[in-house]
């Protein structure tokens, strides 16, 4: 029997080591670190936006910068933070361990994806940051920021109306980032399918891995379509091709939303996976209706591809087609509802260990529910005709993407960082952060529902008084700073208890986890497992801890 030897560690400088690593865990850490930086940066842009909108007629930032700020806030949060953090960060680090693999299927391609993401991120944000610096120091306008808004609707995004190079840099950045994501998805799919530990059937995949697998399928099917569109828009702008100059303006919208609606699920499904990991561990109970949860995840992904044109109910799409998309959009509420109730009943009758990961997960369920319900409103054509592009929409998707994904990410960080660094984050600070975030989040975004109902459109740099909007905008701005404070507390927590190593030693399994990552030391060695464990149920570690109550044998 041949055996594999672990190479003796060659002495490389830390920098060279990080730059050349193909280890999925190190790649995951770089993803998490960089995308968290983009989270902070895009968050600062949100603060600039909220400061400007705190009162009517404010001129704290100029309108051109405002337009760039909301464009870069949105695309930064979506393309450079949420997706890379969940898929590239958590996905890379934990999925291979969860399935009992020693690395991703294609480690070199994994490193390539990472550095392509870094390059794309620098392209998108670097030019913008340089422009800000140039403006602040009086060098003049470099025009390297995009103001085309995240959907870059034509004809505004064509050269005739947006001549600045910033839009080109931004388009190419998004396209490269998409290619990075697509290659990452290939890697995830092959890893999660082919490198599973013995005994780990598809139905025994941990929920996070299952969600990530579903997400990878979505990335794989959706992203290339956008990439094609982005290339065409770029050649239109730079080489005078004529795709979007004379075409029906809805063509770009179809291409864009064919990707960008599934993108919402790409951002939220992995976060759903994270909390589906956390809930059973902290309730000491199996997840309620595992198969229903897995199937509903897949159904959301499938239906997610049939709903894109609900973003176009006021664009002049054929009305029969609109009704079809209304139907599919409303149907997607059903599997989403299944998930919410299954999560709640995972808590029901459990023994809840009220630690920060669980708090964040409960916060997720609570806020995401509101986002989901308001999604039904927007799926109904007559209501969407009224509320399209209003602050109601802004609030809706923040309830899904902040209330969902970001709460899920923080839950995941408190849950998994002890595994990554071997130290626990501080619980007290975590609890304070949770409550500040919960209050700040609702204070920011609930008033925005009211603003939408009062007729306030999104993407407006300022507004006139006497429309009844002032108070709600002020509340929203106060909320935004509360969120910022909560995030600051997290950073302090991280610096003191993990970077300065003041936290308690985590040990292999601080939470009594269920999945294989808790079988390895914290942090795991480069090869993860000396011996690949054999799996007999969906909770392999529970079985080890409680052989008398083991899932295997009496279940399935």
């Amino acid at each position, binding site marked *: 029997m041949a055996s594999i030897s672990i190479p003796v560690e060659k002495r490389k400088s830390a920098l060279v080591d990080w730059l050349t690593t193909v280890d999925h865990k190190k790649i995951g850490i770089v993803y998490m670190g960089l995308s968290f930086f983009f989270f902070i940066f895009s968050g600062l842009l949100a603060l600039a936006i909220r400061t400007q909108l705190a009162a009517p007629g404010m001129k704290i930032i100029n309108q051109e910068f405002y337009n760039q700020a909301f464009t870069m806030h949105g695309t930064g949060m979506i393309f450079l933070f949420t997706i890379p953090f969940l898929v590239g960060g958590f996905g890379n680090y934990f999925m291979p361990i969860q399935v009992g693999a020693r690395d991703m299927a294609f480690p070199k391609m994994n490193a390539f994806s990472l550095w392509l993401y870094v390059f794309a991120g620098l392209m998108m944000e670097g030019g913008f940051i340089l422009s800000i610096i140039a403006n602040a120091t009086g060098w003049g306008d470099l025009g390297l920021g995009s103001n085309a808004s995240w959907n870059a609707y034509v004809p505004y995004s064509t050269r005739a109306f947006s001549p600045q190079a910033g839009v080109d840099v931004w388009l190419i950045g998004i396209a490269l980032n998409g290619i990075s994501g697509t290659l990452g998805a*290939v*890697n995830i799919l*092959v890893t999660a399918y082919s490198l599973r530990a013995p005994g780990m059937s598809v139905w025994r995949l941990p929920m996070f891995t299952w969600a990530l697998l579903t997400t990878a399928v979505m990335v*794989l099917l959706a992203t290339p379509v956008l990439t094609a569109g982005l290339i065409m828009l770029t050649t239109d702008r730079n080489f005078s091709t004529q795709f979007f100059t004379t*075409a029906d303006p809805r063509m770009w919208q*179809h291409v864009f939303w064919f990707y960008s609606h599934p993108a919402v699920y790409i951002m939220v499904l992995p976060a759903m996976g994270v909390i589906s990991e956390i809930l059973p561990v902290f309730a000491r109970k199996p997840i309620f209706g595992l198969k229903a949860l897995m199937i509903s995840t897949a159904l959301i992904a499938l239906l997610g591809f049939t709903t894109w044109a609900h973003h176009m109910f006021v664009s002049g799409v054929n009305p029969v087609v609109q009704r079809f998309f209304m139907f599919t959009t409303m149907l997607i509420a059903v599997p989403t509802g299944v998930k919410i109730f299954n999560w709640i009943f995972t808590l029901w009758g459990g023994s809840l260990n009220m630690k920060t990961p669980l708090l964040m997960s409960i916060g997720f369920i609570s806020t995401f529910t509101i986002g989901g319900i308001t999604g039904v409103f927007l799926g109904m054509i007559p209501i969407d005709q009224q509320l399209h592009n209003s602050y109601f929409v802004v609030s809706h998707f923040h309830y899904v993407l902040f209330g969902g994904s970001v709460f899920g990410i923080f839950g995941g960080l408190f849950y998994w960082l002890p595994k990554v660094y071997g130290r626990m984050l501080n619980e007290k600070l975590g609890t304070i952060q949770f409550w500040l975030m919960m209050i700040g989040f609702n204070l920011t975004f609930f008033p925005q529902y009211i603003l939408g109902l009062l007729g306030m459109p999104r993407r407006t740099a300022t507004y006139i008084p006497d429309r009844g909007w002032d108070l709600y905008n002020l509340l929203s701005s106060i909320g935004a700073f509360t969120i910022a404070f909560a995030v600051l507390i997290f950073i302090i927590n991280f610096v003191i208890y993990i970077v300065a190593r003041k936290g308690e030693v985590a040990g292999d399994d601080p939470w009594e986890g269920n999945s294989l990552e808790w079988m390895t030391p914290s942090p795991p060695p480069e090869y993860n497992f000396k011996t690949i464990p054999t799996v007999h149920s969906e909770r392999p570690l529970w079985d080890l801890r409680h052989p008398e109550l083991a899932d295997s044998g009496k279940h399935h």
Partner: protein
Amino acid sequence: MDGRQKLQPIHDPRRKNLGLFGAIVFIVSESMFFMGVFLVWFYLRETSPAWPPLGIARPNIALPVVNTVIMAISTIAMIIAERGVARDNQRALINGTAIAAATGLLFMTVMILEFASLGFNPTTNAFGSSFVMVLVFHVLRVFAGVVIMAVVLVRALLGQLNSSRRALVQACAVYWYFIASIWLIVFYFLYIKL
């Protein structure tokens, strides 16, 4: 311990075809890319009063027919190479890959002639843009395929490929079949069904 530990090796049949599986998954994403490209083609076609627009001559079918034949030869050569490596027939592998790569290059050359002979260019109008862009996107894949074949060829000449180490050949072959099928679709919609 001397700094070396023994890791238990993994024996799992699923691991054998990682490269091939990866290539197939990648091809799925490539298909979606072409779906996006064709989405634009059909959208423009359906929303235009005339397709091709008035005043644009229908492109001549001669060169694309030649290219279809070239693609067919290339595909057969690739099949021979793939079967060759499965049977440890190094000559079939090397010759097959070489012919497939050479015909791939020939395909690209003919395509350049085709671009020169078109009576329109990508800046003429939406028709010109989408027509040329479909061809460009395809021919870029042909180029990528030829590059992969060059790698296969080098490794075959170095004797690194055989029936138990042929994932690269399989991946290369399945990608090449994919490119050939896309060519048929392109040929059908851009020339025959125009």
